[in-house]
Protein backbone atom coordinates (compact mmCIF):
# COMPACT_ATOMS: atom_id res chain seq x y z
CA UNK A 1 0.00 0.00 0.00
CA UNK A 2 1.35 3.41 -0.83
CA UNK A 3 1.47 6.45 1.37
CA UNK A 4 -1.72 8.11 0.15
CA UNK A 5 -3.79 5.04 0.73
CA UNK A 6 -2.37 4.68 4.19
CA UNK A 7 -3.53 8.16 5.07
CA UNK A 8 -7.09 7.30 4.22
CA UNK A 9 -7.16 4.26 6.40
CA UNK A 10 -9.97 3.99 8.86
CA UNK A 11 -7.43 3.81 11.62
CA UNK A 12 -6.03 7.31 11.13
CA UNK A 13 -8.09 10.17 12.38
CA UNK A 14 -7.60 13.86 13.00
CA UNK A 15 -5.66 14.58 16.14
CA UNK A 16 -8.44 16.84 17.38
CA UNK A 17 -10.76 13.94 18.13
CA UNK A 18 -8.19 12.26 20.36
CA UNK A 19 -7.53 15.45 22.27
CA UNK A 20 -11.26 15.99 22.73
CA UNK A 21 -11.80 12.53 24.10
CA UNK A 22 -8.75 12.87 26.29
CA UNK A 23 -10.14 16.06 27.78
CA UNK A 24 -13.54 14.48 28.29
CA UNK A 25 -11.99 11.54 30.11
CA UNK A 26 -10.21 13.88 32.51
CA UNK A 27 -13.41 15.78 33.06
CA UNK A 28 -15.44 12.65 33.73
CA UNK A 29 -12.80 11.27 36.09
CA UNK A 30 -12.87 14.57 37.90
CA UNK A 31 -16.65 14.34 38.18
CA UNK A 32 -16.57 10.85 39.57
CA UNK A 33 -13.96 11.96 42.07
CA UNK A 34 -16.26 14.80 43.04
CA UNK A 35 -19.01 12.26 43.77
CA UNK A 36 -16.84 11.02 46.58
CA UNK A 37 -15.63 14.48 47.57
CA UNK A 38 -19.15 15.73 48.17
CA UNK A 39 -20.00 12.40 49.78
CA UNK A 40 -23.25 11.86 47.89
CA UNK A 41 -25.03 8.84 49.25
CA UNK A 42 -27.58 6.26 48.18
CA UNK A 43 -29.34 6.27 44.88
CA UNK A 44 -27.80 9.54 43.67
CA UNK A 45 -24.27 8.30 44.35
CA UNK A 46 -24.83 5.07 42.50
CA UNK A 47 -26.48 6.72 39.52
CA UNK A 48 -23.67 9.22 39.17
CA UNK A 49 -20.92 6.64 39.63
CA UNK A 50 -22.44 4.33 37.05
CA UNK A 51 -23.16 7.08 34.55
CA UNK A 52 -19.63 8.43 34.70
CA UNK A 53 -18.19 4.92 34.62
CA UNK A 54 -20.10 3.87 31.55
CA UNK A 55 -19.41 7.16 29.78
CA UNK A 56 -15.69 6.78 30.38
CA UNK A 57 -15.66 3.15 29.36
CA UNK A 58 -17.72 3.96 26.29
CA UNK A 59 -15.41 6.77 25.22
CA UNK A 60 -12.30 4.67 25.64
CA UNK A 61 -13.78 1.76 23.72
CA UNK A 62 -15.37 3.82 21.01
CA UNK A 63 -12.56 6.24 20.21
CA UNK A 64 -9.30 5.14 21.75
CA UNK A 65 -9.92 1.54 20.81
CA UNK A 66 -11.49 2.60 17.51
CA UNK A 67 -14.60 0.55 18.03
CA UNK A 68 -16.73 3.43 16.73
CA UNK A 69 -15.05 3.07 13.36
CA UNK A 70 -15.08 -0.69 13.23
CA UNK A 71 -17.65 -2.55 11.24
CA UNK A 72 -20.71 -3.84 13.05
CA UNK A 73 -19.67 -7.47 12.67
CA UNK A 74 -16.76 -6.96 15.06
CA UNK A 75 -18.67 -4.65 17.38
CA UNK A 76 -21.51 -7.12 17.78
CA UNK A 77 -19.26 -10.10 18.26
CA UNK A 78 -17.53 -8.22 21.06
CA UNK A 79 -20.55 -6.80 22.80
CA UNK A 80 -23.09 -9.62 22.76
CA UNK A 81 -21.18 -11.93 25.08
CA UNK A 82 -21.50 -9.23 27.71
CA UNK A 83 -25.10 -10.34 28.21
CA UNK A 84 -23.72 -13.43 29.94
CA UNK A 85 -21.84 -11.16 32.32
CA UNK A 86 -24.90 -9.01 32.91
CA UNK A 87 -26.91 -12.13 33.73
CA UNK A 88 -24.19 -13.33 36.05
CA UNK A 89 -24.09 -9.97 37.84
CA UNK A 90 -27.85 -9.86 38.35
CA UNK A 91 -28.01 -13.41 39.66
CA UNK A 92 -25.02 -13.00 41.94
CA UNK A 93 -26.46 -9.81 43.37
CA UNK A 94 -29.61 -11.75 44.24
CA UNK A 95 -27.52 -14.55 45.68
CA UNK A 96 -25.49 -12.17 47.83
CA UNK A 97 -28.65 -10.59 49.20
CA UNK A 98 -29.98 -14.02 50.08
CA UNK A 99 -26.73 -15.03 51.78
CA UNK A 100 -26.62 -11.96 53.96
CA UNK A 101 -30.30 -12.39 54.75
CA UNK A 102 -29.86 -15.93 56.08
CA UNK A 103 -26.70 -14.98 57.93
CA UNK A 104 -28.33 -12.12 59.75
CA UNK A 105 -31.48 -14.11 60.42
CA UNK A 106 -29.91 -17.23 61.86
CA UNK A 107 -26.64 -15.95 63.28
CA UNK A 108 -27.62 -12.64 64.79
CA UNK A 109 -31.23 -11.49 64.74
CA UNK A 110 -33.30 -14.63 64.99
CA UNK A 111 -37.04 -15.00 65.05
Amino acid at each position, binding site marked *: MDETQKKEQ*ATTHKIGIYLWIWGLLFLL*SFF*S*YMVDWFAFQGFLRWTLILIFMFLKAGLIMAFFMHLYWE*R*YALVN*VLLWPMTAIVGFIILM*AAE*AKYTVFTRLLYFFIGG
Partner: protein
Amino acid sequence: MSDNSLNNLPKGFKGMSHDMGSDQTAFKGVQWGKVMMWIFLLSDTFVFSCFLISYMKGRTSTVVDWPNTSEVFSLHVGGMPVPLLLIAIMTFVLITSSGTMALAVKYGYEKNRKMCGWLILATAIGGLTFVGMQVFEWSKLIHEGVRPWENPFGAKQFGSFFFMITGFHGTHVSIGVIFLFIYARKVFRGDFDEGKRGFFTTMKSDYVAIEILGLYWHFVDLVWVFIFAFFYLW
Protein backbone atom coordinates in the same frame (compact mmCIF):
# COMPACT_ATOMS: atom_id res chain seq x y z
CA MET B 1 -6.72 -3.71 2.54
CA SER B 2 -7.47 -0.27 1.28
CA ASP B 3 -10.06 1.91 2.83
CA ASN B 4 -11.81 2.55 -0.47
CA SER B 5 -13.10 -0.94 -0.75
CA LEU B 6 -14.26 -0.96 2.85
CA ASN B 7 -16.21 2.24 2.27
CA ASN B 8 -18.05 0.64 -0.59
CA LEU B 9 -19.42 -2.10 1.59
CA PRO B 10 -22.84 -1.74 3.21
CA LYS B 11 -22.75 -0.24 6.67
CA GLY B 12 -24.47 -0.95 9.95
CA PHE B 13 -26.48 -4.09 10.52
CA LYS B 14 -26.84 -4.62 6.81
CA GLY B 15 -23.10 -4.56 6.63
CA MET B 16 -22.93 -7.03 9.42
CA SER B 17 -25.10 -9.57 7.66
CA HIS B 18 -23.09 -8.95 4.52
CA ASP B 19 -19.81 -9.56 6.30
CA MET B 20 -21.04 -12.62 8.09
CA GLY B 21 -22.45 -14.03 4.87
CA SER B 22 -19.34 -13.45 2.83
CA ASP B 23 -16.41 -15.75 2.25
CA GLN B 24 -12.82 -15.51 3.51
CA THR B 25 -13.16 -13.06 6.39
CA ALA B 26 -15.94 -12.14 8.75
CA PHE B 27 -14.32 -8.93 9.95
CA LYS B 28 -13.52 -7.06 6.78
CA GLY B 29 -10.21 -5.26 6.77
CA VAL B 30 -9.26 -6.29 10.31
CA GLN B 31 -5.88 -7.93 10.59
CA TRP B 32 -5.48 -11.31 12.25
CA GLY B 33 -3.42 -9.92 15.09
CA LYS B 34 -5.99 -7.29 15.84
CA VAL B 35 -8.82 -9.81 15.95
CA MET B 36 -6.70 -11.94 18.20
CA MET B 37 -6.17 -9.08 20.62
CA TRP B 38 -9.86 -8.25 20.59
CA ILE B 39 -10.95 -11.80 21.31
CA PHE B 40 -8.26 -12.11 23.96
CA LEU B 41 -9.49 -8.92 25.57
CA LEU B 42 -13.02 -10.26 25.48
CA SER B 43 -11.79 -13.31 27.35
CA ASP B 44 -9.84 -11.12 29.75
CA THR B 45 -12.95 -9.04 30.31
CA PHE B 46 -14.58 -12.20 31.58
CA VAL B 47 -11.66 -12.74 33.93
CA PHE B 48 -11.98 -9.27 35.42
CA SER B 49 -15.76 -9.52 35.45
CA CYS B 50 -15.52 -12.72 37.45
CA PHE B 51 -13.17 -11.04 39.88
CA LEU B 52 -15.47 -8.07 40.28
CA ILE B 53 -18.57 -10.23 40.55
CA SER B 54 -16.89 -12.28 43.27
CA TYR B 55 -15.99 -9.03 44.97
CA MET B 56 -19.59 -7.86 44.79
CA LYS B 57 -20.81 -11.16 46.18
CA GLY B 58 -18.21 -11.16 48.91
CA ARG B 59 -18.78 -7.59 49.92
CA THR B 60 -22.56 -7.73 49.88
CA SER B 61 -22.81 -10.94 51.83
CA THR B 62 -20.37 -10.16 54.60
CA VAL B 63 -21.94 -9.28 57.92
CA VAL B 64 -18.84 -7.50 59.17
CA ASP B 65 -18.64 -3.82 58.20
CA TRP B 66 -16.73 -2.98 55.07
CA PRO B 67 -14.10 -0.28 55.66
CA ASN B 68 -14.91 3.20 54.43
CA THR B 69 -12.76 3.36 51.34
CA SER B 70 -12.54 7.13 51.16
CA GLU B 71 -10.97 7.11 54.61
CA VAL B 72 -8.74 4.10 54.10
CA PHE B 73 -7.37 5.46 50.87
CA SER B 74 -7.01 9.06 51.97
CA LEU B 75 -3.69 10.89 52.07
CA HIS B 76 -2.76 13.54 54.55
CA VAL B 77 -1.83 16.79 52.88
CA GLY B 78 -0.73 19.43 55.35
CA GLY B 79 -2.38 17.53 58.15
CA MET B 80 -5.73 17.38 56.35
CA PRO B 81 -6.98 14.01 55.08
CA VAL B 82 -7.82 14.24 51.39
CA PRO B 83 -9.97 11.27 50.39
CA LEU B 84 -8.79 9.08 47.53
CA LEU B 85 -6.06 11.56 46.57
CA LEU B 86 -3.58 8.93 45.45
CA ILE B 87 -6.27 7.06 43.53
CA ALA B 88 -7.23 10.26 41.76
CA ILE B 89 -3.63 10.84 40.74
CA MET B 90 -3.28 7.25 39.59
CA THR B 91 -6.40 7.60 37.49
CA PHE B 92 -5.02 10.80 36.06
CA VAL B 93 -1.72 9.14 35.18
CA LEU B 94 -3.38 6.15 33.57
CA ILE B 95 -5.70 8.26 31.45
CA THR B 96 -2.77 10.41 30.41
CA SER B 97 -0.89 7.35 29.28
CA SER B 98 -3.95 6.11 27.46
CA GLY B 99 -4.08 9.37 25.56
CA THR B 100 -0.41 9.22 24.58
CA MET B 101 -0.94 5.64 23.44
CA ALA B 102 -3.85 6.65 21.25
CA LEU B 103 -1.68 9.30 19.64
CA ALA B 104 1.17 6.83 19.25
CA VAL B 105 -1.13 4.57 17.26
CA LYS B 106 -2.14 7.48 15.07
CA TYR B 107 1.45 8.49 14.37
CA GLY B 108 2.40 4.89 13.82
CA TYR B 109 -0.10 4.59 11.01
CA GLU B 110 1.22 7.83 9.58
CA LYS B 111 4.65 6.20 9.64
CA ASN B 112 5.93 9.00 11.83
CA ARG B 113 8.60 6.88 13.46
CA LYS B 114 10.01 9.45 15.90
CA MET B 115 6.69 10.73 17.19
CA CYS B 116 5.36 7.22 17.54
CA GLY B 117 8.40 6.02 19.45
CA TRP B 118 8.46 8.93 21.86
CA LEU B 119 4.75 8.63 22.56
CA ILE B 120 5.12 4.94 23.30
CA LEU B 121 7.97 5.76 25.66
CA ALA B 122 5.80 8.37 27.34
CA THR B 123 3.06 5.77 27.73
CA ALA B 124 5.51 3.34 29.24
CA ILE B 125 6.71 5.97 31.70
CA GLY B 126 3.10 6.68 32.62
CA GLY B 127 2.53 2.99 33.21
CA LEU B 128 5.65 2.76 35.30
CA THR B 129 4.53 5.72 37.40
CA PHE B 130 1.19 4.03 37.91
CA VAL B 131 2.80 0.81 39.07
CA GLY B 132 5.10 2.82 41.33
CA MET B 133 2.16 4.56 42.96
CA GLN B 134 0.45 1.25 43.35
CA VAL B 135 3.49 -0.08 45.17
CA PHE B 136 3.28 2.98 47.42
CA GLU B 137 -0.39 2.35 48.07
CA TRP B 138 0.19 -1.31 48.85
CA SER B 139 3.01 -0.59 51.24
CA LYS B 140 0.93 2.07 52.96
CA LEU B 141 -1.89 -0.40 53.50
CA ILE B 142 0.45 -3.17 54.59
CA HIS B 143 2.03 -0.71 56.98
CA GLU B 144 -1.41 -0.03 58.42
CA GLY B 145 -1.88 -3.73 59.03
CA VAL B 146 -4.04 -4.74 56.06
CA ARG B 147 -3.11 -8.18 54.76
CA PRO B 148 -4.78 -10.56 52.33
CA TRP B 149 -5.82 -12.61 55.35
CA GLU B 150 -6.71 -9.87 57.80
CA ASN B 151 -7.91 -6.31 58.00
CA PRO B 152 -7.94 -4.15 61.09
CA PHE B 153 -10.65 -1.85 59.65
CA GLY B 154 -13.40 -4.45 59.21
CA ALA B 155 -14.25 -7.34 56.92
CA LYS B 156 -11.40 -9.71 56.11
CA GLN B 157 -12.45 -9.84 52.49
CA PHE B 158 -11.49 -6.20 52.02
CA GLY B 159 -7.79 -7.01 52.13
CA SER B 160 -8.18 -10.19 50.09
CA PHE B 161 -10.11 -8.61 47.27
CA PHE B 162 -8.07 -5.43 47.30
CA PHE B 163 -4.72 -7.16 46.91
CA MET B 164 -6.04 -9.72 44.48
CA ILE B 165 -7.87 -7.39 42.11
CA THR B 166 -5.40 -4.52 42.12
CA GLY B 167 -2.61 -7.05 42.00
CA PHE B 168 -4.07 -8.70 38.94
CA HIS B 169 -4.62 -5.32 37.33
CA GLY B 170 -1.11 -4.23 38.30
CA THR B 171 0.28 -7.37 36.70
CA HIS B 172 -1.52 -6.45 33.50
CA VAL B 173 -0.06 -2.95 33.67
CA SER B 174 3.44 -4.30 34.30
CA ILE B 175 3.23 -6.72 31.39
CA GLY B 176 1.98 -3.81 29.28
CA VAL B 177 4.93 -1.66 30.35
CA ILE B 178 7.40 -4.37 29.40
CA PHE B 179 5.85 -4.69 25.98
CA LEU B 180 5.72 -0.91 25.58
CA PHE B 181 9.47 -0.71 26.13
CA ILE B 182 10.10 -3.57 23.72
CA TYR B 183 7.95 -1.96 21.06
CA ALA B 184 9.44 1.48 21.63
CA ARG B 185 12.81 -0.07 20.85
CA LYS B 186 11.42 -1.78 17.80
CA VAL B 187 9.89 1.44 16.55
CA PHE B 188 13.08 3.43 17.00
CA ARG B 189 15.07 0.67 15.33
CA GLY B 190 12.73 0.88 12.36
CA ASP B 191 11.48 -2.71 12.44
CA PHE B 192 8.03 -1.65 11.38
CA ASP B 193 9.21 0.39 8.42
CA GLU B 194 11.33 -2.44 7.08
CA GLY B 195 8.99 -5.29 7.98
CA LYS B 196 11.73 -7.00 9.93
CA ARG B 197 10.99 -10.54 11.07
CA GLY B 198 10.22 -11.21 14.72
CA PHE B 199 12.72 -13.04 16.88
CA PHE B 200 10.38 -15.77 18.07
CA THR B 201 7.60 -15.94 15.55
CA THR B 202 9.63 -15.14 12.41
CA MET B 203 6.66 -13.11 11.18
CA LYS B 204 7.02 -9.73 9.51
CA SER B 205 6.61 -6.64 11.67
CA ASP B 206 3.91 -4.15 10.83
CA TYR B 207 2.62 -0.94 12.37
CA VAL B 208 -0.62 -2.77 13.14
CA ALA B 209 1.31 -4.14 16.08
CA ILE B 210 1.26 -0.68 17.63
CA GLU B 211 -2.51 -0.57 17.40
CA ILE B 212 -2.72 -4.04 18.93
CA LEU B 213 -0.50 -2.93 21.76
CA GLY B 214 -2.68 0.15 22.07
CA LEU B 215 -5.80 -1.99 22.37
CA TYR B 216 -4.22 -3.83 25.26
CA TRP B 217 -3.17 -0.63 26.94
CA HIS B 218 -6.59 0.99 26.60
CA PHE B 219 -8.12 -2.18 27.98
CA VAL B 220 -5.96 -1.87 31.10
CA ASP B 221 -7.23 1.68 31.44
CA LEU B 222 -10.78 0.46 30.87
CA VAL B 223 -10.47 -2.08 33.67
CA TRP B 224 -9.19 0.63 35.94
CA VAL B 225 -12.34 2.66 35.24
CA PHE B 226 -14.40 -0.20 36.63
CA ILE B 227 -12.10 -0.88 39.55
CA PHE B 228 -12.13 2.81 40.41
CA ALA B 229 -15.91 2.91 40.39
CA PHE B 230 -16.56 -0.33 42.19
CA PHE B 231 -13.70 -0.64 44.58
CA TYR B 232 -12.90 2.92 45.56
CA LEU B 233 -16.14 4.80 45.09
CA TRP B 234 -18.58 2.15 46.38
